[in-house]
């Protein structure tokens, strides 16, 4: 457990440091944030034609309200936490890669819900928007990361999840990892 946490914190610091570099911002964070805005706008457009997107800004054409997806709301930090947690946990690489693929989709999927919900909450009540934006959704997204990690850990072979080899079978048959 200590090894996991040390590795997790190390990976977290490195990945977060890389994310803050101008190179990563230009070539990854900004394009991803714009893509997130387009995805959210496309989904909203299915039931609301009064929405447009420009870069990372989603605007309502029926009111003057607009939301700009900034750092902390693009799901990149939550994804970094998930990547660090899965890479640090002892597991076969196949499980790690599958877990990362499914986990990133789950985290970013909920993040799209966050963006859309904030877009409408902001048009309805500014105080509720601030509360949801600054506190509630922050906690929910990290809860999502934790749940995804827990579900992933449950799928691991016992030997990997516990960090110990499996107990030998009573029948004397060879154990298969």
């Amino acid at each position, binding site marked *: 457990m200590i090894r996991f*946490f040390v590795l997790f914190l190390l990976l977290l610091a490195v990945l977060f440091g890389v994310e803050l570099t101008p190179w990563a911002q230009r070539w990854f964070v900004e394009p991803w944030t714009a893509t997130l805005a387009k995805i959210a706008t496309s989904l909203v457009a299915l039931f609301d034609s009064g929405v447009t997107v420009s870069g990372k800004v989603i605007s309502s054409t029926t009111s003057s309200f607009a939301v700009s997806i900034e750092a902390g709301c693009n799901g990149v930090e*939550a994804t970094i936490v998930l990547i660090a947690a899965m890479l640090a946990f002892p597991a076969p690489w196949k499980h790690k890669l599958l877990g990362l693929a499914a986990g990133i989709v789950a985290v970013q999927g909920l993040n799209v819900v966050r963006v859309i919900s904030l877009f409408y909450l902001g048009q309805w009540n500014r105080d509720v928007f601030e509360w949801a934006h600054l506190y509630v959704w922050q906690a929910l997204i*990290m809860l999502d990361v934790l749940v995804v990690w827990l579900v992933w850990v449950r799928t691991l072979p016992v030997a990997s999840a516990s960090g110990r080899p499996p107990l030998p079978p009573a029948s004397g048959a060879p154990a298969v990892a």
Partner: protein
Amino acid sequence: MRRIAPSAPLSRFILAVLAWLPVTFAVWYLAAPIILWPAVLLAEWAARAGWGGLVSAVDQHAAIVAFTTTLKPGAVVAGGVVTVDVNALLYSFGLPMFAALTLAAREPQRWRALALGYAALVPAIAFGIDADFLKNIAITAAPQVTSQAGFSAVQREAIAFAFQFGSLILPAVAPAIAWVLTHRAFLERVRRTEA
């Protein structure tokens, strides 16, 4: 063959967490002046220890931490000093998250876990408060203020990183780490049961 235990299925736990969250958020918001008081004290102690020459007073008004500095705002406001208000709620929303996770887990020693988690999160909250304060006087304030603060370029970079880490990562990750560390037995049960 996986064993189906009567306790701790993951789906029931997640529903319990979602049920507890409104309660814990309400308590956290209403009791913020009391709950945040130790973190504000620690933030004040750290600020005075690290940058005593820049801080003349630290006051708490509900969830707002007001830093009174020794910095002058410039010629426009003669005789005044720069004050920085920091919203401590921004760095403490992990407290209701940790409480909801702990209460939903329903472990026998949940009050001990709550106390341990709270003690572990107070320094993280204080870190966020101080990083926000430093970011204000070293980076986002007017040039005549940042120049008085006297931080080097390297120090400003470190402050920027500390602020980003203290606002984007630490408030959400710290409660998750604290919860995992205080619920290892619960996690082991969850791992071995069906959802």
